């Protein structure tokens, strides 16, 4: 899977912690680094043929960035990829994110094992 930091936000501890946990759980994880555009993230997902795309956003711009990601995936014929979002996500935005097609929302304070289980169950690993 790919863990990505879209946009300008520099809070990367959460993304790195989740990436390390998934790696420990036996998954192959690519971390993009900071300040990535949605186009770059989708390109990485395509080139690396990942099953899961995880993005992490703390700045508050999560709705717009998720919408952009989902649209881009659809346009590229990658709507089947599992998309997860983490970071500073208020409860009130969870349903909107789900409407956009985001598969799992894991805000700050989520349990690492829950994230791992969620992916394993869906991917059937």
């Amino acid at each position, binding site marked *: 899977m790919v863990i990505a930091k879209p946009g300008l936000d*520099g809070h*990367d501890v959460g993304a790195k912690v989740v990436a390390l946990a998934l*790696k420990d759980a036996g998954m192959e994880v690519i971390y993009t680094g900071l*300040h990535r555009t949605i186009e770059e993230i989708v390109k990485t997902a395509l080139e690396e043929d990942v099953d899961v795309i995880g993005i992490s956003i703390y700045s*508050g711009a999560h709705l717009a960035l998720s919408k952009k990601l989902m649209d881009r995936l659809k346009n590229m014929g990658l709507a089947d990829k599992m998309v997860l979002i983490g970071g500073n996500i208020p409860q009130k935005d969870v349903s909107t994110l789900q409407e956009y097609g985001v598969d799992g929302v894991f805000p*700050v304070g989520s349990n690492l094992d829950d994230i791992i289980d969620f992916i394993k169950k869906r991917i059937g690993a």
Partner: protein
Amino acid sequence: MKKNNAEEQKTVVLESGIEVKPVYGPEDTKDLNFEGKIGHPGEYPFTRGIHPLMYRKRPWTMRQYSGFGTPKETNERFIWLLEQGQTALNVAFDLPTQLGLDSDDSFAEEEVGRVGMAIDTLEDLEEAFVDIPIDKISTALTINPVASVLLAMYLVVAEKQGIPWDQVRGTTQNDILKEYIGRGTWIFPVEPSIRLIGDMVEFCSRNVPKFNPFSVCGYHIRESGATPIQEMAYAFEIAITYIQEVLSRGLKIDDFAGRIAFNFDIHGNIWEQVAKFRAGRRLWAKIIKERFGAKNPRSMTLRMIAGGGGGGLTVQQPENNIVRGAYYALISALSGTQTMALCSYDEAYTIPSKKAALISLRTMQILADEMGLKDTVDPLGGSYYIEWLTDQMEKKIVECMQKVEDMGGIVKAVQEGHIQREVSHQAYLREKKIQSGEIPKIGVNKYVMAEERTEIELHPFNTKVAEEQKKKLGRIKAERNNAGVEEALIGLKEAAQTEENVMPHMLKAVKSYATLGEITKVLKEVFGEFKEPVGL
């Protein structure tokens, strides 16, 4: 009874890896000689504080981080905070500004005015400081890769207010090395970024003597997962790097070391933090005196802002963060900080609401005026435990600095990503310990409440800010003398290509109302961009 015994037997180990005994006594401090290791406040090695009278003479400066939306909205918040008794300003910029992008840049979309105020041109900063006497109020500008641009803007604002530069007081955060480790607002590669810091220090030491051109942030390094020992050790290694850059230009250590500032984190074990700062003061004094040969005692003092500790706050049961904030303030005061800025209780969600900012300010005021924290200097000094722990912490910081130097120095360790990997692995281990309950966190792994949907009042985000900023930017571009802008930018580019100090050209560029984005673009053309080492 059996349980009590087990409790007594259980070892207590601090985050710094130091084991704590149940009781300390004179035998633990018998090797500490008072004159050499502890001394009087205001005297070398400054273990007990950098001023002889500390808060007895003047309480710590209160400087809450604030700024959002348009410069006008931010100006209103600044004035309101000053009316409430805040004694200095600490400016939050939005992410596009922090990364040198104008509000009309496509990559800035959705971020304009969100986590701080938007600045595109000098006019924005002028608006932000209307009716604020910047010779009397010191201002911290939380800005890093483009700190030179904001410093130039701030100095022109002073000029326009009729304030001579030698009366301008403030700080640009301007610590780029920690941005690569944590926080993440970097633009240019490491070397030219350090050169820009050198240009600013050189310029300020000659022209703006009361300004602190950089503030080294152990804070964000700790927030990224570092232990308190690493926080201090990496911060000192970073500060030493900047010092060496400035010395290479022919300045003497006493010309500028007295204007070096630090920004440290406060969350964690109370005694460990207090000892960390006492050890840090002693070690820093020694480094500046012995390694750099400073003669002026002021050069040897570790001056700091403390009080924040976002990593200790929780999204669960957010009002508990008010209590944590109060303890952080207490620790900061017991640690002898010069300036205090607390994380507001809603920090885990958003930038501070008006209510949250006011509670933080009142927390500090209650501590200063009601609780006796101003009465006497370093009240914990002489405690067997604190003095022993201070000594242990100092030894560990020295060891950790040596480790960095063995890696080839902090610049190399950051360029190659070693430090980043080290701290993120520690963040992961810490998170695992929180999730397993090994590190207790109230409301997270202990005393968890099943149904807690505490809806706290959040700072609202105004989507109109971007439109307003874009409109303003369009008007300024139409009104300004574009030939003058072009000329200033060419001058800046030529200076950047040589070893000439960029600051005079930066001043000319901002005065011509060149935008932050235009200036940054010119520097990018010369310097290139940082390539982040992304290996986990």
